[in-house]
Each structure stands twice: as C-alpha cells, then as structure tokens.
C-alpha cells in the first residue's frame, strides 16, 4: 500500500495534486458547514486563520515552529514504514529524546555551546533511538509486534519523564510548578530572526533530504525497497532483514528524539511534562497522508501546522473551543481515507 501511495502522491503527477486539492477542498467545505451550524461565519473564520498564519510574518514563523517536530515525527513513522513496520510510538520516542537531552544539558552544563549542542542533540537522538530500538529488537525476534510495543511504550516514556520532572530533577525554585531548572544558555538551540524558528528546522530539512537520497540513491535504499516490496524474496536473496528492522526503528526513533530535543532545547528551555500536544500521533497521520513521500511530508506537515495554529485563532477571535480544529483535521483524513483505496 505505502509504495502505491508514494506513487500516487508524487508531486510531479498533476492529477494527483489536483485530486488531493479537491479532497482537501471538500474537507474545508464540510468544516464550513460545521462552523455554520455552530453559528459562525465560515468565510470570516477561514480568512482569519489564513491572515494570522500564512499571511502574517509572525504567524507564519509560528507555523514553521510547529512544522519542525511534525516533520521529524512524520519521518520517525515513515522510515520504519518503508519495510511495513508500524511505529505508533513517535510520541514516546520524542519524550525520551527530550529526557536524554535534559540529562545532557544538566550534566555537561560547563561545556561551551559548540560542544554542548552537538552533544545534547546526539543524546536526544540516542534517547529516542534506543527507545524505538527496544521495539525493534522485540519485533526482529518475532516476540511482540512493533505496533503493540510502540503504543504501550508511549505511556511508559511519558510517565518516566513525569517521574523526573516531578521528582529528582524538579526545579526547587518554581514552587509547585513541575519543571526542571532552565537549560544553560550553551544548551539552547539558537533561534532566528527574532522568532521562535530554531536550528531544528535545519535538522529536519537535512533529515528529509538524507531520507530522500538514501532511499533513491543508495544500496541501502534499494535493499529497503526490496524488503518493502517482497520480504520473502528479500530474505532469500540474503538481505539481513533483522538488522534493517533494528536500524530503521533506531533511526526513526532517533529523529523523533530530535523533535523532543528541539522542543526542550529551543522552545521550552526546560523539561516539562506538557512537552508535546500529541506531535507523535499527528506525525503518524502526516506520514500516512504523505505515503512516505518526502515532499508530501513537508506539505502535510505545513497543512497540519496551519490547522493547529488555526485553533488559537478560532478560540480567540470566534470564541470557539480551540480543539474544534481537530474536526477539520479529522475531516481531511476522512476524505483521504475514504477516497484512497478505490481502484
């Protein structure tokens, strides 16, 4: 399915692009009906969302800020999905990445930024990667399906983070507020242009590029595609499938870990339990909409980031509950899901 999806959603196929646009148009129309039913003017609502996200420089920068973790978690899902591994654990991997990053920032606080930043980034990658690799090991041995283990380990990761934030790492100066002390300045990812857009953007774009190149231009990519195409044939031609399971889970989890690193190191500046509003799950949906296609990931992440940011607009300007935008997100998925598999 995923390979067929990738083909269908390749951007050079104008028909596919038109079709997707049409489907999303339908979703916007359906949500307009919902807004009407709630007594709101949908045209004004959409206008407000657009003007305060895409057509304002601050708003757009905030959209990009949200895209960073979304692109990384989408890759965390898309990479193992190349060989049919279903990683619904990006959320937990993100939390573990943030946890490892925080540990590094606290323990090596004396290091200068040029040494500390790469170190905490590597730790973030390692945290998410190892967390996902546990599921990889269990899958490679045929013990537990990665779908089940990644789902269960999300909760475990989130509770472990809570344990440290409420317990040993709690900042004593912030009274009852559960958070760690602020990171040293050297462990803060730089932000640009006076916005919150941070270096994580570059990391995400590099990750996307490498993902694209490895898949299309290297022997690994060829073997991955071989496993994804026909696992039995790949096994018989001598490809070490267990190793690919492990590596792809590790790399995927690592990227989710980097998403967590960006959130604590740039956005929050400290570890809090409210680290992610479900970036891991939204990343799963982005990867799914995009069918693993690189450009598709960027486009879908943009769309989801705009919708998420739109929630604040609806809440403040139109007095709707902010989570109403979840309806729009779901409607988009519904139209794609119902249309997709028709031969």
């Amino acid at each position, binding site marked *: 399915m995923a390979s067929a999806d990738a083909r269908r959603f390749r951007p050079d196929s104008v028909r596919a692009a038109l079709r997707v646009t049409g489907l999303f148009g339908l979703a916007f129309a359906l949500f307009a009906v919902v807004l009407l039913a709630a007594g709101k003017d949908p045209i004004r609502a959409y206008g407000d969302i657009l003007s305060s996200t895409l057509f304002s420089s601050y708003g757009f920068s905030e959209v990009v800020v949200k895209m960073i973790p979304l692109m990384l978690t989408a890759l965390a899902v898309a990479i193992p999905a190349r060989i049919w591994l279903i990683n619904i654990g990006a959320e937990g991997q993100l939390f573990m990445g943030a946890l490892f990053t925080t540990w590094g920032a606290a323990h090596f606080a004396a290091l200068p930024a040029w040494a500390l930043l790469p170190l905490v980034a590597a730790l973030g990658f390692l945290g998410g990667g190892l967390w996902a690799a546990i599921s990889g090991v269990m899958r490679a041995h045929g013990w*537990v399906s990665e779908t089940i283990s990644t789902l269960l380990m999300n909760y475990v990761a989130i509770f472990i983070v809570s344990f440290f934030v409420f317990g040993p790492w709690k900042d004593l100066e912030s009274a009852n507020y559960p958070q760690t002390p602020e990171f040293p300045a050297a462990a803060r990812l730089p932000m640009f242009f006076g916005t919150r857009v941070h270096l994580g953007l570059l990391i995400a774009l590099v990750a996307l590029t490498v993902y694209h190149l490895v898949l299309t231009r290297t022997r690994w990519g060829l073997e991955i595609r071989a496993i994804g195409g026909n696992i039995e044939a790949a096994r018989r031609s001598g490809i070490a499938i267990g190793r690919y399971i492990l590596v792809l889970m590790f790399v995927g989890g690592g990227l989710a870990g980097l998403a967590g690193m960006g959130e604590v190191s740039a956005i929050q500046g400290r570890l809090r339990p409210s680290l992610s509003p479900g970036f891991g799950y939204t990343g799963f949906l982005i990867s799914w909409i995009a069918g693993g296609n690189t450009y598709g990931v960027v486009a879908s992440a943009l769309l989801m980031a705009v919708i998420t940011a739109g929630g604040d607009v609806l809440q403040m300007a139109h007095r709707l*509950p902010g989570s109403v935008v979840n309806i729009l997100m779901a409607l988009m998925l519904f139209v794609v899901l119902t249309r997709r598999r028709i031969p």
Partner: protein
Amino acid sequence: MSVPFLESVLLGAILSGTPLLYAALGEVIEERAGIVNLGLEGVMLMGAVTSFAITVQTGSAALGVLAGATAGSLFNLILALLVVTRRANQLASGLALMFFGVGLSALLGAPYIGSRIAGLNPLEIPTLAHLPYLGALFRSDILVYLAMPAAALVWWGLFRTRWGLSLRAVGENPTAAYAAGYSPRAIQYQALFIAGLFGGIAGAELSIGIAKTWAEWMTAGRGFIAVALVIFSRWHPLRTVWGAVLFGGAVALQLQLQARGASVSPFLLDTLPYLLSLGVVLIWAGGRHHAAPASLGRVFEGTE
C-alpha cells in the same frame, strides 16, 4: 499502610476501573472481529458529552446513559464506514476518529461547561452497604454494578453463541468465514456498533457517573489505556476485569499517594500496567494460545 488507605485504593481502583472496563469490553469485541480501534478515545468523549447534555436537558440520567450509548455506537459506525466499507487503513482511521471525537465533543459540550447535574444516583445495597471497609463499594451507581456482569455477557456472546463464533472467525480469517457462508462486512459492522455502545457507556460513566460535569477532553487518554488493557488481557473479556482493576488501581494509588503527600513518586508505579501488558504479550508470544486475532488490523479485500 493503614487499612483506610488500602480501602480507598481498592474503591478507587473499582471506580476508575469501571469506565476502563466498559471501553475495553467494546475494544475486545472489535478486535476479535479483526478491527483495531485507536479512536476509542473519541467514542468515549462522544458518549460522555451526549449523556451529559441529555441529562442536563431532560433531568434523567437514565436517558443520558441511553443517549450516550447510542451516540457512541453511531459515532463508531464512522469507523465501520472507513475500514469496512472503504477498506481504509485501520490505525490511521482510528486516530482520525479520535481527533474527530475530541473536536466534536468540545464543540457540542461548550454550552454545558459549568452545568451541574445530580447524575447517576448511588444505589445502596441494603446490608452490604454497611459492611466495614468495603461498604462504600455497595453505594455505587448502577453502571459500576453492571460492569462485571457486562464482562460475563460479552464472554458469553463471544464464546457461547453462534454469532460470537462467526465474529471470531471473521477476526481470524475473513476469507474462510466468507467461504463458510458468513458476511464478514456485516459482522464487522455489528461488532463496531456494539463496541460503540460500550464505548459510549464508558463515557457516560465518566461524565454523569463519576465527574458529574463536562470538561473538554475529560477522558484524558483513557481510550488509549483501554486499548492497552485489551492487550494485557490477551483479547479475553473476563481477563479485562482484572486488567481494569489493575489499571484503575494504578490511577487510584497515585491519587491516594498524592492526597497523602507521599514522598514516593507515583509515576514509576504508573508505568507498571504498561510494562505488565508488554510482559504478558512477550511471555505468550509464539505460544499456541497466541491470543491476538490472526487478521487483526488487516483489510478484508473481499473475495469477489
């Protein structure tokens, strides 16, 4: 540890375990029919908001439960439409359903934030309610009493009726079930409808049984916990009872420890149910009683 402490943990376990149990029973039915529903969270929220709104409007908590169950099953039919009729990816469809439920319930519930209701009345069981220690257990609402019988009912339905046999056959091998004369699609629709009833009741117990208020996203992840619970109980309705007490107990223990200002962090304890679930699946992996339905999560492409 004092007796009142254990008592309140046990009571809390049963109270917070009840919505989990209903939700998990629904999920067992769906998964036995071969469909994973990650959207249970949304189904519960729709049940919670509908039952609360109807209770406010009519003043009748019984009507509220009924409406919540109906809303849950109708909402779950969206999933049926996606994964059974349109053969869409189950995990993505489930997550989409969750987002839909979160948003729609927030919209529908907005006017009811802050409303007050009497909710489901506690029913006192004459003698038992005055037992030492456990008395409070017998002053619960009706949904708490019905939870375990419901588990027995689901067990009976799945394992002692023809319908249950056909449902499990569809979950194991839809093509074979089709060849044997069953309609996999019809059975999966039925399974999702009934599972939605349970999910809706779970939500109703949360909003009009326990909390007696409506708050946005009041399920707070319980739908996902119920999915984990089904794995823990290896897709067996009776074992979900133990799972619900254990998972509910973890929540209750945390609340009690917090209330008493304990120095032990409860969060590591909270990981226990999930680690146990993983352990259970690990231990049983590869065994003959490998309990996950064989066609779980796959798309039945039809035989035509």
